[in-house]
């Protein structure tokens, strides 16, 4: 991949999604300072939504650009991880106000992050199938129903649903807390 291709395939899409996330965080916080409640509610809803979309649904957009732009699988995975990882890191840094560095690192394993990874895998699998369809339509000799893509979709979707269905997520959270106590005791 040359520089130009890299920019089009990876850097621009990743930067755009990342920028949307950062802007959304700032505007969501800013909306709370407004005296006009209707404006506050409207801005909070809008930018809360774009915040969510950037973190949780940026994957298919970035993956598709990267895939169609010729990026390798490793590069695609790296590209889709940047914004969610940045968000997870921001959340980790927040709890550094109260907890140690190691405890903050353990925070990366919290159920929300686990679901996000499953969601990203699902979206990437679906995006991969979509890109394959587009490439085939362009005349490329490529199989659309690729086994690894299908397996990725199936496994990630199953895990995503199962993890939530099992006690509406509470049971996963209990496991997370048990893990914390195993490693850190009471944390005091």
């Amino acid at each position, binding site marked *: 991949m040359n520089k130009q291709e890299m920019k089009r395939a990876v850097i621009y899409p990743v930067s755009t999604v990342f920028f949307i996330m950062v802007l959304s965080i700032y505007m969501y916080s800013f909306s709370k300072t407004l005296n006009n409640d209707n404006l506050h509610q409207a801005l909070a809803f809008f930018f809360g939504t774009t915040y969510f979309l950037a973190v949780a649904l940026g994957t298919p957009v970035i993956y598709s650009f990267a895939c169609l732009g010729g990026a390798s699988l490793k590069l695609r995975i790296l590209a889709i991880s940047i914004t969610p990882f940045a968000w997870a890191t921001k959340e980790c840094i927040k709890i550094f106000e109260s907890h140690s560095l190691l405890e903050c690192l353990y925070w990366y394993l919290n159920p929300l992050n686990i679901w996000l990874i499953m969601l990203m895998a699902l979206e990437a699998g679906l995006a991969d199938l979509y890109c394959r369809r587009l490439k085939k339509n362009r005349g490329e000799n490529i199989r659309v129903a690729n086994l690894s893509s299908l397996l990725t979709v199936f496994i990630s979707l199953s895990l995503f649903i199962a993890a939530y269905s099992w006690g509406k997520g509470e049971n996963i959270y209990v496991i997370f807390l048990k893990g914390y106590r195993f490693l850190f005791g009471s*944390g005091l």
Partner: protein
Amino acid sequence: MTTKTNRLLLDSLSRRDALKMMGALSVAGLGELAFPEVATALGGKSKQRPNIIFILGDNHNANLIGCAGHPFIKTPGMDRLAREGVIFEKTFNTTSLCSPSRASILTGAYAHRHGVRNNHTPWTGQMTTFLEHLSNNGYDTAFIGKWHMPGKGLPDMPFLDLFVSYTYREGQGSYFNCPMIVNGEEMPSRREYITEEVTDWAIEFMETKRTERNGKDSPFCIYLSHRPGHPPCEAPKDLRGMYDNVKLDLPKEIDSWWFGKMNQNVFQGIMMGSYEDQYRKYCEVITAMDRDIEHLLDKVDESGLGDNTIVVYLGDNGMQWGTHGRHGIREPYEESARLPFIVRAPGLIQDPGSRREQMALNIDMAPTLLDLAGIPVPTEMDGKSLLPILKDIGVEGRKAFLMEFWKYYPENTPSYMGVRTETHKYIEFEKGREPWLFDLINDPRELNNLFGTADGEKLLPILKRILQEQSANASVFSNS
């Protein structure tokens, strides 16, 4: 015989042996002289000791009771308790987190003494609970409902005549079909909804004891610990939607949709739907619990025990619903520290329906209940008996108390300790925040931190001195 020798001897006797001995001594006319408290316990005096029903709510914001002035919530059971008893308007927990508060209620001690400092610190039983003190003095005792203190399963409490609880989901249980553990045996819930399940056990115990007592002085104490309003809130089907059309008055600083999903609030069980939906569900479960409280009160009165049964309702924590842009129970704001507290004690309270302004604490429960039962309050308890205040509205209350909190992962509140007086609050944080100083009279919503201001500088030496006195050198800070 000294009281201590008394207690040692009594501890070594089974209840049956004690009864036999007292019987013999009574014949010899020596009972009251040798064992004054046991004489009382075994009916040596004509007046029977009161039964006690202690009801504990979970994360119950003190304003969410009808008689506390809430604009729409329906709580006829608690309203009735307040009408027939007294409601305390300034009751607080000393550590604003479930397990430490529950341990404080049971032991009458601050968390730095009983050792359950956060929800990860196990209960070791290093301090005796008031239930055990009551049991040692002739009470039949039952613990029914949510235990929720860390450790390996449920604690070993052989002095209890009935122990009904659950360990499902780390002791949080579930609102529907919660698997129960009854005297160590696992069994399915007999009733679908958790408040009905635990109330049924309480009523059964009460009615069994009523039948057994048969005129004897054989009082009971039931500790009934409910799950509402812990999230995620699920009301019984017939109460769902009952508050759908009411106008809510949630703080303007929160937004309807995303607030409950941001800033780790998702782990407070409020992720689904709007924040208003979650608040309505919270109100619904409080009403569900209240319905069973009222049912229990009806049964108490129907069974003829009403005149000799003290009923107490307390919450373990308050709850912030968006005030100061926060949700939950950990912050040292009034909304999370202030508790609902109502006492009905026929014959003892001379002015039923009145309100008490004196400050009361969760650590006062154990000494109060022991005092009500005529049992000396152990010196290791930090709390004070509220009996004088219950009897007489004019009795002076405490002037200040210690607030302490140890960080609890994964929640984002640093360890803190501070003091609340009748007029001010001063909090020092271990890291990450400057101290808080609020004038609670002129700034009851705690919006203006006076720390670092000219007014604050004048108040600081006094408040620091009070903190020093209250903490008696105990500290939550890890480098102390």
